[in-house]
């Protein structure tokens, strides 16, 4: 998996890392059940703070894409299809776009409900 971040970009580094990881899972570059590099190793490689990587890993855990276990590191959840990672990324993009356009959470929820 290839992870690229840019400190001069608008998005926070943790969000960039999370986005790159989502993409890697969606493209199948990291397989189901595969272990990601340790947060410490990833932080050193990207020259970012350890907590930035931990925040990104926690974000993906909350999206049910990763499993975080003490001593075992971050493992791509089994049963995680690449489509789910793609969907998580799309939701992420939609929320970001809504924020940019000044669309509130409630308005966005209503828009999604109207779709269904």
């Amino acid at each position: 998996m290839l992870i690229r971040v840019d400190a001069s970009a608008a998005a926070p580094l943790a969000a960039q890392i999370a986005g790159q990881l989502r993409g890697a899972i969606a493209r199948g570059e990291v397989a189901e059940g595969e272990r990601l590099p340790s947060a410490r190793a990833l932080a050193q490689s990207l020259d970012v703070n350890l907590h930035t990587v931990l925040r990104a890993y926690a974000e993906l855990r909350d999206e049910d894409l990763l499993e975080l276990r003490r001593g075992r590191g971050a493992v791509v959840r089994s049963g995680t299809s690449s489509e789910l990672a793609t969907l998580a990324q799309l939701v992420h993009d939609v929320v970001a776009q809504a924020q940019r356009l000044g669309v509130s959470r409630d308005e966005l929820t209503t828009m999604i409900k109207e779709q269904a």
Partner: protein
Amino acid sequence: MSNPTSTELHPPPVNRARSVAAAVLSLVPAGVIAWSAQAWDDRLPDPLPTHWRALATPDGFGSYAGTWRTLLIVALIGACFGIAAAALAWLNPLLQRSTAALGAALAFGALGVWLATAQAAWGRADAAGAPLGWAVVLPVLGVAVGLVGALLVVGRRPHTVHTVPVAAGSSSGLVLAPGERAMWAHRTFMAWPLVVAGALAAGGVVVWFTADAVPALVLAVAAVTAAVLAWAQVTVDARGLRIGLGPWAWTVKNVPLAAIASASAQPIEASDWGGWGYRVLPGRSAVVLRSGPAIVLELADGRRFAVTVDDPETPVALLDALRVRAAG
């Protein structure tokens, strides 16, 4: 991405007659042990000393039949390696030579242990007072005779000629912005090293109960070494290329970015690099987990390093981009 433009000239294959001679040579120790165990029956005590304190006082004993049979089995395993090296024509010449040498070293080492035991206990009725003394060099001598003998018989170390492959260049398309940070990591897991480790560990337990603790310990170390190869993690970042083995990715190899002259993605054959595992050969080294796509690095000091990964194009492109930026 680059095409494999290198031509690797294989070393000359081992002459058939020479391989057979090496196989016969590796059978000699088993023959000597089997014959002498019968012939020396009335000259040696039963039980025999099997372990000494400070080379002087025996503190371990084993039955006469058990001792020579165990050593015969070890010598026969060595002979199997020698025969396998002669029989398996598909083996790379380098691998064929090392297998023959390993087999002969094992077989002659076992003979050395047997001769040392016999020398120490020769003519004694009771093993208790038999000092080992100078005979301790016999096993070492045996291993050396086996190694040198096999290599003399199969021929000199092969000379390999390698042409340097063309560097990947900037055709990869991966360009890093000035402030951008990037890393590539890949982790593989394979079951076969664990199977090998399990077999070695089982062998170690058997040896522990039937023979001595020392060979059992050697097998245990070999088992751990094999098991560690089941997990491999390759990382490329601004610092260079790093390889970690084992479940916690212990770093076994670190190639700084500045030490890399060029990187290319090309398929490699495990037999061209001396087999599987962490291989160190004259002028080149490799972490080989299977035959197939690999990252091949030409280092600034003229050496080469290869590691097998599933998608070598991406890390090679990243290494190129990182090197271009570091140079500019």
